[in-house]
């Protein structure tokens, strides 16, 4: 059973462990730059960088989206609204990271839809970037099964896109900057190490242990199974919220494009039922996007432990007033997701909402 306890402490930037109950020292701008943020900075417009420094962010929300619609236009609009300077993409290596945790043809709403991945790839390729799709499926050692069952394999082949199996690549060790878990560091695969930009492409889903999973939790899937296992039980034993925060703290070159069209509610992230929302969200700050998704799904963001911890660690804004909205307002698309009837999940709600057993 994963460790889902409430956050107690994180380490500060000097490596000292904060005492229980203290707020973690935020990742400061110097540490962010040292960790590779300069590469991302070159892709972002000046106002976005000022926002980041002021711990603010923006989120683009598009509604009435379909997998057979013009997703390329939506994604491009979202990137532009988020301040990504598209003319700086030429020659950059972009790693798209979908969620292919345990694909099943019978449950297509579990994993990122192939149309979303190909559309995002086309936008980046159109602007001269080199695109690779990579994933380390969390529950399957045979990655070919994940590609076949999700439909992503044939779609990538048709689009002439390369896939990187992150489970078995060579790894590079990175020191744990945020120190929310007791892990000293994390092993990252070569493709992640070499990417100029990692695009987290999650599915919008409930999660039966931690409430919800979106762009930040999706980055569990860049850690290689060959080091962390199937499932990545090392992370579970060190706390899901703690390790989600830690991983996001070392992955500084990230943006997100969320598949919120056919989503999962109830017993997510694997066995839940389909909830059609028709949404695509884009943002350059993953915490701001996930906080917004939480509100749309009927959760109180401050009650989701990894969001609260990431905010305390300085990974971005969570308060509504610090997140600028582009496109639709989250209030106009809010539609509470069903959750399992368990106390640890009900306590995450903003108010009472639908439950399933």
């Amino acid at each position: 059973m994963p460790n889902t306890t409430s956050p107690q402490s994180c380490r500060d930037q000097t490596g000292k462990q904060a005492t229980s109950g203290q707020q973690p020292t935020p990742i400061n701008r110097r540490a962010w730059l040292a960790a590779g943020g300069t590469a991302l900075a070159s892709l972002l417009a000046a106002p976005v960088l000022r926002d980041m420094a002021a711990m603010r962010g923006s989120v683009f929300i598009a509604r009435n989206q379909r997998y057979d619609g013009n997703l390329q236009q939506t994604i491009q609009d979202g990137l532009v609204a988020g301040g990504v300077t598209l003319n700086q993409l030429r020659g950059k290596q972009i790693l798209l990271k979908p969620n292919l945790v345990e694909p099943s043809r019978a449950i297509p709403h579990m994993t990122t839809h192939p149309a979303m991945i190909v559309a995002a790839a086309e936008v980046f390729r159109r602007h001269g970037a080199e695109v690779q799709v990579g994933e380390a499926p969390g529950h399957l050692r045979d990655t070919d099964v994940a590609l076949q069952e999700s439909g992503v394999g044939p779609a990538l082949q048709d689009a002439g896109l390369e896939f990187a199996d992150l489970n078995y690549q060579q790894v590079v060790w990175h020191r744990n900057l945020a120190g929310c878990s007791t892990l000293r560091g994390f092993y990252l695969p070569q493709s992640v190490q070499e990417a100029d930009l990692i695009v987290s492409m999650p599915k919008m889903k409930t999660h039966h242990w931690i409430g919800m999973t979106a762009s930040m939790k999706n980055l569990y899937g860049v850690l290689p199974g060959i080091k962390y296992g199937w499932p990545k039980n090392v992370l579970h034993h060190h706390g899901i919220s703690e390790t989600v925060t830690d991983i996001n703290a070392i992955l500084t070159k990230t943006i997100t494009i969320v598949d919120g069209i056919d989503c999962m509610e109830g017993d997510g992230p694997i066995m839940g039922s389909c909830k059609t929302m028709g949404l695509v969200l884009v943002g350059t700050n993953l915490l701001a996007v996930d906080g917004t998704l939480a509100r749309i799904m009927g959760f109180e963001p401050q009650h989701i432990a990894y969001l609260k911890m990431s905010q305390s660690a300085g990974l971005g804004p969570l308060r509504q007033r610090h997140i600028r909205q582009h496109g639709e307002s989250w209030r106009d698309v809010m539609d509470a997701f069903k959750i399992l009837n368990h106390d640890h999940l009900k306590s995450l709600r903003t108010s009472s909402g639908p439950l399933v057993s």
Partner: protein
Amino acid sequence: MNARAALLDRLSRQPTFAYSPDGVMATEPASFAAMCLLHGGHADQAEIILHWLVSIQADDGSVGVTADQPAPRWTTSLACLAWRFHARLTGTSTFAANCQSGIDWILGAKGLPIEHAPMMGHDTRLVGWCWAAETHSWLEPTALHIMALKSVGHHDHSRTREGIQLLMDRQLADGGCNYGNTTVMGQQLLPHVQPTGIAMSALINEPTDSRIDKSLNYLEKQILAGPPLTSRCFAMSGLAAHGRWTAACRDGLKLAYSQVRDQKISTYKLSLLYLASLGPENPLLTSQYELG
């Protein structure tokens, strides 16, 4: 040259044994390749690989996943299987000390039990083997370590027996195995071919049980559906372990041969296909009972 010989020929010309065509040498693909080369009469080449495994063996007997990653150590099971297979075929004891040291490490390694886990469907107190140190016991590493223990005659060892109990406990009610859970919060999880095939391979010669039958039925159905190569090979191994090397397996094999003929594929997959093509004579299976 027949299809199996062609696989062996391709394997024998490889400079490295990895999970992907351009990957680094890794213990699991290397161990499987060594067994193939030994079986195919290329003992000299197999011994180069077996000595490489020796070169990366730690003082505690464990063999890590790659040369530069000494942990996790679940691949110790595969190195031991390869060393033991060499002893069987050649009648020599070149790697006996390495194998014994690996087995000693296996007997001391344990997954973490969980005393109270009311939301989980499996018996979390059973101790098998984990993927990475200080984590829970999971299905595949437990099955692989059981195979290694059986290969040296530890069929009745308490660790082997508890491991078998764990594998049986993790069978899904409708057949097949998940990566290691059965139900979570009352919901049955999805079966998958690879872990089911590996678990069935380790359950060779265990007493008949309806849970095993259900999982074999699941594998037979999946073979017909045409899973990708790696999963298909483990499914064939699991079926062959229980006398179900059927026409569907042979058809699956032919299809696999045709799919890999002109493809650049990893030595990992080449080796798995070679081993699966041996049906009931797959060394992963025969190693477990001929010395028992």
